[in-house]
């Protein structure tokens, strides 16, 4: 599914904002996720506890470049992450605006070119723009991660038609909806449209019970995927009786 790695779960889980390391670990377990995202920061008080979690969870790590606003910052962060985490995977974020946290597509493509050339396997956080997607593929990305809505907003799929178009345009390229998902129904909606996976963090971490919410997301994503594979019926404008008219009694 991603750079030659096959996975059972289509949920990728962020590790930030949980009430405690123990709750984070429970949520990872309950979600069934096989990929978790991590970051690099100046060492804080909880640093050692977090490193223990990384070794306890058997998940594959996807380091991010969160907080980077220029291609140069993102490239440096990616190089640092590859050394510390021992993986060439990088979730490439280059933020264009502090309020919307919208990706800067120009700097994103620039950073993706540099990193792909250095052998990184890049997961770019992008918009649903088709041309930006094409430039990212040209740069060497083999996955695209369009946003659902602004990071942490929980708005769900702001532009479902745009994502549907993206799905059709990039047939065969793994597409991950990254950011903005607030409820399992929104994740299921994306999966029913044929998107390949969901990356989320806040919706689980900020739930009243993160572990139960993580399980709910895992199930919704699985259900949405099965619905896509089964083929969702086409929508109709008019009613169409499901019970046969043939054999109907005359009782009037």
């Amino acid at each position, binding site marked *: 599914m991603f750079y030659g790695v096959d996975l059972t779960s289509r949920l990728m889980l962020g590790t*930030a904002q*949980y009430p405690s390391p123990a709750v984070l670990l429970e949520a990872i377990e309950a979600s069934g996720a096989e990929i978790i995202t*991590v*970051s*690099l920061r100046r*060492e804080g008080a909880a640093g050692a506890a*977090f490193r223990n979690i990384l070794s306890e969870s058997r998940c594959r790590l996807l380091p991010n470049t969160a907080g980077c606003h220029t291609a140069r910052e993102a490239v440096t962060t990616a190089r*640092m992450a590859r050394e510390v985490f021992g993986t060439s995977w990088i979730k490439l974020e280059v933020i264009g605006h502090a309020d919307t946290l919208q990706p800067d597509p120009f700097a994103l493509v620039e950073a993706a070119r540099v990193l792909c050339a250095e052998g990184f396997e890049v997961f770019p956080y992008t918009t649903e723009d088709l041309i930006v997607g094409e430039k990212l593929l040209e740069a060497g990305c083999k996955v695209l991660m369009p946003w659902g809505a602004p990071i942490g907003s929980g708005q769900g799929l702001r532009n479902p038609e745009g994502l549907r178009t993206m799905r059709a345009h990039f047939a065969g390229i793994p597409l991950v909806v990254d950011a903005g998902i607030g409820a399992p129904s929104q994740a299921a909606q994306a999966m029913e449209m044929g998107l390949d996976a969901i990356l989320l963090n806040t919706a689980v971490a900020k739930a009243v019970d993160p572990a139960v919410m993580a399980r709910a997301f895992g199930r919704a994503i699985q259900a949405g995927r099965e619905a896509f594979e089964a083929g969702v019926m086409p929508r109709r404008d008019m009613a169409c009786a499901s019970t046969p008219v043939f054999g109907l009694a005359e009782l009037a």
Partner: protein
Amino acid sequence: MRIDLNGEVIKTQARTLADLLIEQGFEAPCVATALNGDFIARSMRDATRLDEGMKIEVLSPMQGG
């Protein structure tokens, strides 16, 4: 000399990046380093000499989304 380490100006006796990590008590295998915005690989820390006013970042694995 004075350098900027993770956003704070400190005085150091260290001559190289590798010495600085030891002096400041970092677990060298668990951190990644950058100097003036450029990545410095683990294997280059010994050979990386420090100068007055350099900006050093020493980063560790943390939670992320």
